[in-house]
């Protein structure tokens, strides 16, 4: 299994992570060695394994649906690099129009 530059760029888009030209070759090398390593798993016969049964965990508990007041709103908004009043300013969303 070998990964191409095109595939790697596509993965970068899915991950919202720009992959620079200078990063391409070392990343390809890494992908090729790790994907090759993952091939090991094909040695196993897993046809009988159901991966999603929960064996021994406690059933998920739900919290009571009640209002718990918290005064951290300001401190959360203040962490934004571009707060404007009660809003956070971001660059334009959408196309060129």
């Amino acid at each position: 299994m070998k990964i191409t530059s095109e595939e790697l760029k596509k993965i970068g888009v899915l991950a919202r992570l720009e992959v620079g030209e200078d990063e391409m070759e070392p990343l390809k090398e890494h992908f090729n060695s790790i994907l090759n390593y993952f091939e090991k798993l094909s040695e196993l016969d897993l046809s009988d394994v159901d991966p999603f049964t929960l064996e021994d965990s406690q059933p998920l508990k739900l919290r009571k649906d009640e209002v718990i007041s918290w005064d951290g709103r300001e401190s959360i908004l203040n962490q934004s690099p571009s707060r404007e009043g009660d809003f956070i300013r971001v660059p334009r969303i959408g196309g060129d129009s």
Partner: protein
Amino acid sequence: MDLYGLSACEMAREIKEGRCSCVAVVKSCLDRIDMMEPEVHAMISLWRDEAIVRAEELDKRLASGEDIGPLGGVPVVLKDNLCTEGHETTCASAILKGWKPPYNATVVKLLTNAGAIILGKSNLDEFAMGGSTESSVYGVTSNPWDLERVPGGSSGGSAAAVAAGYVPFSIGSDTGGSIRQPAAFCGIYGLKPTYGRVSRYGLAAFASSLDQVGPFARTVEDLAKIMEVIGVYDPMDSTSEDVAKCDFSSALSRADLKGKRIGVIEEIEEYDYDPRIKKALDDAVQACRDEGAEIVPISLATAIKYGLACYYILAPAEASSNLARYDGVRYGYSAKDANSVEDLYFKTRREGFGDEVKRRILTGTYVLSAGFYDAYYLKAQKVRKAIKEEFARAFDKVDSIVLPVSPTSAFKIGELVDDTMAMYMADVFTIPVNMAGLPGLAMNVGFSEEGLPLGVQFIGPKWGEEELLGTAAVMERRFGKAKIASREVK
């Protein structure tokens, strides 16, 4: 002995019985930090003034007859991926530089309520991804036993801080060995609790199905005491389980290995690793035998042969999702001059994340992407299930399992930086424990000729911490408590 060299339980007793003050303990630890830190570099931030103010306040409360808690006046450092209200929490990443969480992690709250005094936040591999503490944007931490070598990772700062005598105990997190491996490299105790024992609320998420918070210490008594404080059900973490609270400390004195069945893994016998580590394992096995335990060979073929490949699919997959939140909008680093919101995401993440974090995000995105999910992620989930079942079968035959922590002792700084796969391979013995959600305890059983700590780990069944702590207490009587790295520093 200087105050900094006491264990956490000793410190708490000395303070409670009025033989020393909280302020004196904090000052002793800060002096030790000032002496060692220029060379060890275990810390990302120090809370010097605040720690003294808190110590004064605790001394006052004590003077007025108040009970200041089981860890009253005991200094601690926290891995810098645990949220601390109003104090920077960086995950050793440029992308979180300057971020001050608006709340405390549950573990931080519990420790503070128990009277512990936070001295600061310790270094780690960026977002806890690594085994050497070399990928921190704040620089490399050195092993206090040999400054040319790594302390292990990812909780390398927390381990180095305890080994260097900064604090009697510290807190780390373990996703694939990040508590146990640095504990072994630094010659101290490290406990990765059962998944669900300690709340992860406020721990910056890496791989949520594997992450677990746990302590480092120099004595088993301390580990037990800390687990009593932090092993508490937390409704704020949906994976926290409401198990009966254990009195770990009182179980220690009556701990005994007579009649216990301790497993040794056949596949490790066949594994090619450092003969010094092999010798350490043999010594530990012999000690168990001498104490009356029966040594039982067991097979964990899937875990040992396939656990690593399985982990390096599942952990990056979860990381790619968990780290999607770092987008440059709400907090942390934000790239300048972005011309659209998409462009802001792409640039912020390119500039804010380091190489290893990027590798994991991209690998994780790949194995989850359309067309590859079945071949990688789904297959790895099946292997994980098979590993869990394999452990369940093993624990029908044994009470605990003893095995190496890492195939080597602490390696040189820079030695593996350019060989990612070799760095990954070093996790082979720690990862299966996380895959199965079990508790694992790493401890020192000796030193190599060049003075490097050699460790082993014990694995217990689910909720088997009491068993593990008991076993470690028996081993401690034979191998001694963990030592502070005594090398003279200029």
